[in-house]
């Protein structure tokens, strides 16, 4: 094999560059975000569904809510415990979780998801926009 040295150095440099994010951030994983609950959310203890369910499936739940309200004109959600909720992102979810920046955004930023709910739905019904 001719140019053996050249090829090996090239491969090594290539690997260093490609693996840059791994060796640069080695052992320094960004900490998982802590979401903050408003006093009201804390007092309620339970969301529409259990915390685990909400954590894992809130997007599916919101999707279901959207379709039920907009396309089937059904606006009331009764959870397994029999409690009724008005299916509304701004008026129900954010009424309790009125701290979007500390509650929604922290996790969404960490997971690098950018839901565009807020381009139409009012972020915070209580805060002045």
């Amino acid at each position, binding site marked *: 094999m001719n140019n053996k040295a050249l090829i090996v150095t090239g491969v090594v440099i290539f690997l260093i560059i490609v693996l840059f994010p791994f060796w640069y951030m080695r052992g320094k994983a960004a900490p998982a975000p802590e979401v903050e609950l408003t006093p009201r959310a804390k007092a309620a203890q339970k969301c529409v*569904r259990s915390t685990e*369910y909400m954590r894992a499936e809130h997007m599916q739940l919101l999707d*279901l809510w*959207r379709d*039920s309200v*907009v*396309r*089937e*004109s*059904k*606006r*009331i*959600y*009764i*959870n*397994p415990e029999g409690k009724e909720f*008005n*299916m509304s992102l*701004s*008026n129900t979810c954010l009424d309790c979780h009125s701290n979007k920046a500390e509650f929604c955004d922290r996790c969404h930023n960490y997971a690098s998801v950018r839901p*565009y709910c807020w*381009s*139409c*739905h*009012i972020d915070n*019904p*209580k805060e002045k*926009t």
Partner: protein
Amino acid sequence: MDSSRRRILQLLGISALALTTRPVLNAFTKEARAAEAEAVIKAGAKSLKARQWAMVIDTRKFESEADLEPLVDACHKVHNVPRLQNKNHEIKWIWGTHYHNAFPGKAAQFVAESVEQRPFLVLCNHCENPPCVRACPTKATWKRESDGIVFMDFHRCIGCRFCIAACPFGARSFNYRDPRPFIAEINKKFPTRMKGVVEKCNFCAERLAVGQLPACVQASDGALAFGDLYNPASDVRKLIKTNYTIRRKQTLGTEPSVYYIV
């Protein structure tokens, strides 16, 4: 390696079996989850119901554009409709127009002066045969089976504007710009729209769902009536029975649900 035909077939069989396990297991877990918690979704108990919502506008009660303003304001405020100065970008759900614009055509060459000079309140007619619905490629607008409202799903609108072209009444507006900066006072109970979607009157579906009449009807002090077109005892039917009414561009066959007493 021994690669007889029999061996290869055996391997293929086992691989096929292995591939099917995951979907089967998934189906089982899904079933288990569904059994443990069931949520119910229903319409509100107070919601108003009709086969086809309709409106009767008594135009005799409006003398000038200023008389229409409170109605327009009531609607635009509650639905976060922006006020854009540029006519090309204007967003309208309900507005006042001249007789000849509301009722074009050659029905009569000469009309009573009082009628001709009266302002006419126009809005989406919630047609029984809506051409905008047929034009929509994404079903972002459709005729609700439950109450005949021609509804918009802003989530699904891709902004193609076919519906604007299809609507013979100019009832639809397009958001050429982000509307938020042009809303003087945001009603926090109702969403705004974003750049790139079409919007129009929704017959206050969100108010009907909680047992309230549309905002314009409430603000009209009796000049507007609202009710079920197919209920002979409803307010609108009573008015239609006792007054001479006209509808916009009737000959097109879209069957508008907004009637005008002239």
